[in-house]
């Protein structure tokens, strides 16, 4: 599959990138490691006139310890996130999540910024080679959703691994654009809309992520996927605890990927676990709206989320 022709820019510094963003008039896409962007161009899902590669910008690939936390540049490769000693020490859930992504080759190419921005997935959008056989779905600029035919929006699923882990650590996203810099909590970067799941402006670039330390916190990430390697999770669960269950001070945070069009904190479940009053977790999960996707029923997906949560809770 040849790529459609495009103009390619590869800035060497953030200031060069900002100059480029202020100037570029074409329809452009930003490319981190290229593992998704180039694939989408090959599949005709993106047809940019210009591609801006971020791989040459050294400022984006730093891991830096700060007083109250760790800064990870958006351009750091997933394999480097998985192997970084500081990440493994303070944020094990993130290291474990990064280690689960795709395959060794793709982890050597893909960046954490790219994984956080990863497009949503759906059988009718980016998992079909026979897409010519039916009218395009909403996300392919068509008029209907095949997953929820009565729905008004796109229900494609967000399936990246690392954002679930990042949500545990109060992660702050540092953004830059020709108009200036800003910080947003990672949670506010996403919205539950499969078509357009990022609240980023077109000319905004993620510089990196700030994760915060917490004394005594233990964390982990587990996922369930049809294949162990080169696959996306059906459900991925990241969990962090401080203290001991049932013994005074205890707090738990749970975040999930693969359930909806965004990664999300499972606050209902967090409360039920913390109260520990014997109420049915299953019942609590029922309150989370999940749709049938790829032949997987909502109840099965919720069940997996609970099983993974229990495994983590018992293991930490």
């Amino acid at each position: 599959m040849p790529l459609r022709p495009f103009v390619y820019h590869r800035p060497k510094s953030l200031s060069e990138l900002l100059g480029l963003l202020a100037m570029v008039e074409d329809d452009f896409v930003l490319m981190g490691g290229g593992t998704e962007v180039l694939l989408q161009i090959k599949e005709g899902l993106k047809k940019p006139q210009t591609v801006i590669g971020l791989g040459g910008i050294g400022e984006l690939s730093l891991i830096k310890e700060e007083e109250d936390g760790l800064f990870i540049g958006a351009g750091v490769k997933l394999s480097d996130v998985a192997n970084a000693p500081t990440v493994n020490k303070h944020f094990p859930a993130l290291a474990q999540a990064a280690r689960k992504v795709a395959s060794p080759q793709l982890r050597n190419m893909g960046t954490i910024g790219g994984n956080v921005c990863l497009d949503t997935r759906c059988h009718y959008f980016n998992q079909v080679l026979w897409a010519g056989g039916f009218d395009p779905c909403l996300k392919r600029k068509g008029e209907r959703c095949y997953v929820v035919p009565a729905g008004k929006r796109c229900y494609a699923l967000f399936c990246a691994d690392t954002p679930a882990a990042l949500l545990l650590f109060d992660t702050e996203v540092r953004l830059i654009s020709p108009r200036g810099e800003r910080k947003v909590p990672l949670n506010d970067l996403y919205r539950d809309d499969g078509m357009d799941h990022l609240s980023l402006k077109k000319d905004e670039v993620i510089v990196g992520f700030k994760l915060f330390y917490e004394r005594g916190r233990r964390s982990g990430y587990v996922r369930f996927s049809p294949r162990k390697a080169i696959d996306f999770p059906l459900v991925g669960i990241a969990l962090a605890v401080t203290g001991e269950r049932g013994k005074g001070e205890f707090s738990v945070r749970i975040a999930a990927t693969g359930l909806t069009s965004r990664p999300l904190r499972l606050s209902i479940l967090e409360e039920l676990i913390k109260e520990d009053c014997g109420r049915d977790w299953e019942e609590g999960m029922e309150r989370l709206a999940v749709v049938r996707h790829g032949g997987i029923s909502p109840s099965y997906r919720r069940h997996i989320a609970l099983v993974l949560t229990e495994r983590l809770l018992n293991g930490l």
Partner: protein
Amino acid sequence: MVCERRRIVLNVNNFSYEVEAAPHETLLYVLREKLNFRGAKEACDGGECGACTVLMDGRPVLACLILAWDGEGRKITTVEGLAQEGKLSPLQEAFLAEGAVQCGFCTPGMLLSAQAFLDTAENPTEEEIREALAGNLCRCTGYVKAIAAVKKLAKEGREKNNGL
């Protein structure tokens, strides 16, 4: 829209090659069609199978999802770079000895993934070897013999280092 081609310099298997490439040409295309390194294979062309694996600065990557322009200034190794002076590398010999090859289409990628792994791993477990080869799909012989080959070589390397 102007997509200008330009001359780029690629360092492949320790030789520099000057070649003309358009911005949208992949490293795989340039390696195979312009520089005649046919060891890297085009199979799924979408990052799923690992047949196009090459090493970039010693790390396995997929040449089908890398732009040729981005290969500039990097040290690229293809399977052709493993044999030295017409002699197969120890890893290639181990693959032969174990019979880890059938149709051979996945073999270059698997060799490169395994080589990069052996270059850094000390005393690897079978689980670690499996993980290192997880990005290379084989559709005929399976993985048992390839894993055995890597294991054998890792063990030999260890014995050599221990002076046995």
